[in-house]
């Protein structure tokens, strides 16, 4: 543990930042186990854990309760357990954002020293406190890039003061970077968690709160993630394999790389899908951000910036970018769009009995 002058990590701090290494050590010392959730105290913890998740779903935010710090502390790993059992990428996404926002808002109110303490000890970020005018911290560019909340405007590296590998940032920006690190931490933690299969059956208490959460989630899931209108059958028959693969990947709730996003978006726009259609698809990605996505997709559609309408990579470039998924129909195809016009469109028309114009 790195010592930071003037920082005392109190029990309230442990409750405010339950992912911190201090809190994790504290929980370990308490010796609280899953079976303890069956008791009276455990029920209180479960209730708070369920509240955390439901609040994340309904209000996209989680409040802070410090009157019983131990409950607040123990409810956090319990929430992670519940999210794990519910096994839904989108729920995990929404929950991790809400938790990280909760902590991020608290962090902004803390002293710079305390932010430094958490950044150093919990996230091993290479950070220095410099207190130099608007620049309160400097952070190594690798840690900066890894935790970037946005990729354009003031956050992009080209617009920053950077020297000898260190990026100069304000206190609020530091809090925002840690917020991002918390989000990633939660997602990783849940993904790597081992849970026994029958845990829900053997725990009536857990089963109860899980059903509570499921009922709420059912109401909101469709709102946040409207069902995407390309059927699996369409995917495999009318789209070229490279694009179908990427759309599949999105629908499975995985993030696409920059060039993968470009390929999918430009392809869909080229065949006449709307900007909203593309945005609705991208909503499935864990790092989805409405504002950034809309900006980028509109840019590709030629509605912003240089007003150039972009076209998907040709097959050569797809190959160079390792995105080519060549199949037997790809012979003599030089561009993904060509595949769509040669094979896809015909099948689509034949099956649906509609004219080309209406697609």
């Amino acid at each position, binding site marked *: 543990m790195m010592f930071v002058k003037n920082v005392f990590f109190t029990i309230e701090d442990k409750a405010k930042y339950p992912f911190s290494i201090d809190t994790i050590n504290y929980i370990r010392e308490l010796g609280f186990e899953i079976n303890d959730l069956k008791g009276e105290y455990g029920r209180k913890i479960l209730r708070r854990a369920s509240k955390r998740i439901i609040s994340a779903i309904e209000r996209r935010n989680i409040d802070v309760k410090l009157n019983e710090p131990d409950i607040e502390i123990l409810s956090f790993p319990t929430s992670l357990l519940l999210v794990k059992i519910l096994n839904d990428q989108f729920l995990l996404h929404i929950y991790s954002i809400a938790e990280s926002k909760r902590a991020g808002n608290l962090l902004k109110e803390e002293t710079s020293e305390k932010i430094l303490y958490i950044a150093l000890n919990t996230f091993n970020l290479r950070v220095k406190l410099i207190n130099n005018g608007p620049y309160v911290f400097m952070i190594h560019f690798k840690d900066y890039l890894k935790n970037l909340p946005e990729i354009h405007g003031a956050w992009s590296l080209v*617009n920053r003061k950077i020297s000898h590998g260190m990026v100069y940032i304000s206190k609020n920006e530091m809090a925002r970077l840690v917020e991002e690190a918390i989000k990633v931490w939660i997602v990783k933690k849940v993904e790597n968690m081992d849970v026994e299969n029958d845990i829900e059956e053997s725990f009536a208490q857990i089963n109860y709160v899980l059903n509570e959460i499921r009922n709420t989630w059912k109401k909101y899931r469709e709102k946040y993630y409207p069902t995407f209108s390309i059927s699996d059958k369409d995917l495999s028959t009318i789209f070229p394999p490279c694009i179908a693969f990427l759309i599949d990947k999105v629908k499975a709730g995985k993030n696409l790389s920059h060039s993968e996003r470009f390929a999918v978006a430009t392809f869909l726009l080229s065949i006449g899908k709307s900007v909203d259609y593309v945005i609705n698809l991208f909503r499935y990605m864990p790092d989805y951000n409405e504002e950034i996505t809309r900006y980028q997709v509109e840019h590709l559609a030629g509605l912003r910036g240089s007003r150039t309408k972009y076209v998907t990579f040709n097959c050569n470039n797809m190959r160079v970018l390792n995105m080519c998924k060549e199949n037997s129909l790809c012979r003599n195809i030089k561009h993904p769009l060509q595949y769509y016009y040669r094979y896809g469109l015909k099948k689509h028309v034949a099956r649906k009995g509609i004219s080309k114009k209406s697609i």
Partner: protein
Amino acid sequence: MLQGKELVKNLFKQYYRWNALKIQIPDQFDKREFGFILFDKEEQMFRHISFKRKEDIFHFFKEKYPKHAYFSTAYYANPEIPVMGEKGWLGANLVFDIDIDHIPTSCKNMHDRWFCLNCGFKGNGMIPVKCPKCGSERIKKETWVCEKCIEIAKNYTLKLIDLLIDIFGFSLNEMKIVFSGHRGFHVHIISNDIMELDQRGRREIVNFVKGEGLIQYILDRIKAQGVFNLSVDMNGWYSKLAKALYELFLTQNIDFLKKEIGISKKSLEFLKNNKEKMLRNFERTLTWKLPLSFNEEDLKRILNYAISKNNIPIDERVTIDIRRLIRVINSLHGKTGFRVIQMSYQDLELFSLKKAIVFNKPEYIKLHWENPPSYLLDYKLNISNKIHTLPFYIGIYVIENHVFNVEILDIV
């Protein structure tokens, strides 16, 4: 032509028979993918090759004397698996490529030319992406490298290395500076700091080096606030831009602004009347209050010019690609017969193409060659001649690089 190919093939074979042990084995070579292009099978690249022992690599070069040899900048759990997604990506070096092909230079008029396969239009100098007459991308090109090009690429590479040290904090110990064997230089950074950096992160580094995203940000701020104060005491790039604008307005006349930057009549008129006042104002405040009465298009043009004075034209695809293949150090480049060599920063400052010459034999190669470029490598050709007697290494370069008819007559 067949004769020429046989000649080069035998030279490579002989070279590797005695020099295979000089091949520089990359770190963690057993986690890297290798790729080769072999003589007689030049249309195909043999990829997904991995080696478990160093001796196997030396042996391969000795036995196969590849025309081109590459290794992956990435490390994989299973580099031999032919499906990229299943190799198990573990990380990648950060690599920069400065290739004179992408940089306009004045010497290109002497040695580069192109021909549109669609409409027959042709020209000298920088190869266009599209035919300026018919817009076709089917362009046949003939490009050569000369000492002048390499000098320019070298200076950009030095500038890049300075930036990597000053801005990103890398040390020379973490860098490999490499002559690519043809038109430029590679800089490999082998450091745990960047090993796991994703494409998005690498794109940010590229944008910094190229100065991309600056103009959009400035325009956005102007739209939001009406003004953007560009001052010398701002962050890295902005300070450079402020200084570059001062230099531009101070040293260049109106004619230059019109011809080279292409700003509009209205802006020229404004500059004519207000330039002195603007300069005095800047000297006092060290700040430009953008947009300075320029319209958006003119402001973009002026800023683009200021950026071009400070950016480094790296090939961004190489840096962003986290599965790139790059040339093996100390292998031979099949298009030139030059050696891919690693060097120190000091050696780079003194670098000339001569240092990469391998086939420096006392014989001359006599060629039948119509319409050659007037200058290539360090050699001037008489373009009115059809028969040329060239130093051996130049002859090899011509045989390997030439795309139109050239015929070996004799070796004397």
